[in-house]
């Protein structure tokens, strides 16, 4: 992904392949992308795709 400086502009962000997740430990819902998702709130790897 190309981002720019301290305020990156990655353009058409809607086309990024992010997925919704829900943490099975703390219930946090978040969007993420990448191969090894984990909860950004409690750091648990026990997450499930939610959509």
């Amino acid at each position, binding site marked *: 992904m*190309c*981002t*720019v*400086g301290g305020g990156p502009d990655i353009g058409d962000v809607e*086309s990024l392949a992010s997925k919704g997740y829900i943490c099975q430990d703390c219930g946090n819902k978040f*969007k993420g*992308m990448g191969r090894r998702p984990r909860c*950004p709130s409690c750091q648990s790897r026990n997450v499930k795709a939610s959509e």
Partner: protein
Amino acid sequence: MNIPLADDEIAYLCGRTGTMALVKTLGHFFYLETETEEISLFTDEDDLLVASTFEVGDAARRGLACTLYMIREMNSPLIVLPKGHPASRRLRTVVSVGDKTRIKCDIQAGTHPEQDVLCGTKEFEGVEVISMPGGAEVKKFAGEVLKEKLV
């Protein structure tokens, strides 16, 4: 060429018209902040943060190191500007995150969301930076490589 890279090191690919820098992500995740949502970008231990600038010399290397330090060590979020925002043309460093980065010089900075493409100067066209255990493999680059401590 293979570039061994310790967890606390930064490597610079020094060209005549631009500079690139790479550090390991150490498996950290990073926040992409758009106008409406927050996306967490997850990485593997051996993935790389790669930064590119159209400048050379000490100032360019310091700028790249600061950019990568802020992102990795300070967990600075990546603020996504709306397309066409006037701030885009003021910014002088581009960053890629992942296991592979390809440099292209015929694209407009910040306008391509493909994960493995980064803009750079013409001399870096075709350069590929691929993560590997303990460092990076850099293809199609024959210039000078410098390394130093990032932290």
